[in-house]
């Protein structure tokens, strides 16, 4: 019976023969995915890239691109975005890196290790609306720390919540999710540092600072810088937190893009949104390429061991 079916379909040869595995009809297998990603990924990408060099009527023109490039508002927003991303990437990488070191030097597989890793994986994703609420409940009007400050430290900046709704506040909020992300990225590298290297250094008479200067830091640097670049892109692309915390539509480039796209007062301006997006993509592509280069270096080193 089975054999009959087997012959009947006549595909036994076709399926197992090596020619079938490489035949042209195999390309049909990727068609559903290609169509789907074409619609939801390639089309929007193309739409932004091509739209950046068109005006709102679909004519080829670099006017909008130039306008955006020369606009003082767009430049200020871009500068703010870069400043915020650089600050939070550096602070986040340092604090996250140090915290990862504190985790790695603890008991491996212990409670502290497990809780820290689990908490990091949750909090690294904890951006947006809920993060804003957490910090409003802490430093905002009537928040935990600010109401304590009103009572005990009435003349410090903590008693007055206005600092929260600007660059300082955003930096502190962004760093909140940057630290755990850095822990997740950097911890595996730290765990790959072999204790034998430290022992070898000690046995040869090296001091602790010499070990870190000559062995530890050179080995960790590519991974650390890579992590910092990832954090940079992470906050450069972030929109939700800034959108829910502050109401300044031109403060950061993502906010400006959203305004250009949805503005109800001035009418939407998709061409401007696309040009702004184009500049963002250029920055992200540069940073991610650097990151890819660094990762390649790290994985090469990890294979050599």
């Amino acid at each position, binding site marked *: 019976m089975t054999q009959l079916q087997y012959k009947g379909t006549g595909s036994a040869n076709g399926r197992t023969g090596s020619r079938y595995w490489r035949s042209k009809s195999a390309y049909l297998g990727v068609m559903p995915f290609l169509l789907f990603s074409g619609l939801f990924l390639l089309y929007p990408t193309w739409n932004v890239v091509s739209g950046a060099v068109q005006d709102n009527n679909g004519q080829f023109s670099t006017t909008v691109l130039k306008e955006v490039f020369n606009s003082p508002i767009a430049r200020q927003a871009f500068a703010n975005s870069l400043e915020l991303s650089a600050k939070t990437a550096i602070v986040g990488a340092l604090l996250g890196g140090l915290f990862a070191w504190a985790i790695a030097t603890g008991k491996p597989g212990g409670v502290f290790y497990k809780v820290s890793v689990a908490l990091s994986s949750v909090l690294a994703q*904890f951006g947006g609306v809920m993060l804003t609420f957490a910090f409003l409940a802490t430093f905002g009007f009537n928040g935990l720390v600010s109401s304590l400050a009103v009572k005990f430290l009435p003349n410090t900046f903590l008693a007055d919540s206005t600092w929260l709704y600007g660059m300082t506040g955003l930096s502190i909020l962004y760093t909140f999710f940057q630290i755990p992300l850095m822990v997740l990225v950097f911890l595996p590298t730290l765990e790959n540092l072999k204790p034998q290297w430290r022992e070898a250094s000690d046995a040869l008479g090296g001091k602790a600072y010499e070990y870190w200067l000559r062995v530890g830091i050179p080995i960790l640097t590519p991974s650390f810088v890579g992590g910092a670049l990832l954090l940079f892109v992470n906050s450069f692309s972030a929109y939700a937190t800034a*959108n829910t915390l502050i109401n300044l539509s031109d403060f950061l480039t993502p906010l400006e893009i959203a305004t250009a796209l949805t503005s109800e007062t001035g009418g939407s301006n998709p061409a401007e949104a696309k040009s702004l997006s184009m500049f963002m993509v250029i920055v992200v592509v540069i940073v991610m390429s650097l990151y890819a280069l660094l990762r390649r270096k790290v994985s090469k080193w990890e294979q050599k061991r």
Partner: protein
Amino acid sequence: MKQSLGVRLWRWTIISFVALYLLVPLYAMFDFSTKPFGFADKGRTFRAWTMIPSQPDLLAAISRSLITAAIVMALILFMIVPTAIWVHLKLPGLRRPFELLCLLPLAIPAIVIVVGIAPLYRWISINISESPITLAGVYSMLILPYTYRSLSAALDAVDIHTLAEAATTLGASISRVIFGIIMPTIKTGIVNGSFIAIALVLGEYTISNILNFKTFQVVIAQIGRQNGNVAVAVSLASLLLVIFLLLIIPTKKRQGAVLDVDIA
């Protein structure tokens, strides 16, 4: 090796500083959500917490987000994973282009994708459906890099060519090979991918807010404009739920999911 006093001092300074940074806002959420509001003015109250179920839109948004997550997972299982296996098995020449396509979302921030995809969703809203569930399409693309990383690691670890040839020699059809033979061997990679899918769908705000879809996060923001205490209570509740889910999922599977943000 015994740690020196200096090292221990450093370590605990760092730990307490970061722990304060991360935990004080979380405790503040609890503090804020139990503060009296409205006509009450003293003491502690769980009124904000008891008001969670009666929030308009909230339950509907949660169930829609869960349905969306299920669709994203189905897209991963029945489209992305089979395609990845197919490319590995039959079209080795396409592996590099396929990889580049999967990593593309890393270069395009969500705020940029929304700019490009707005016309498509305008069309979908008019001609197909206005439901936020349609966002599953763009969400499945957003997580593509993470899905791809956990999948390709899993596929490289198993000799799927031998498995496929053995199975076809014994008369298995190609769909049997993909769904019955290879997919079970890369189960962990698939579980990791699905976990990320749920996290992404429940946490996504940028795209749904700009396209005016009422997803979970958008509804929380909306509650926040009416009653801060309830919004904080909802946020803390969902955060606790996620931590709880993380703790009941076996450690080994989870860690892979979490640490696999690595690209290139």
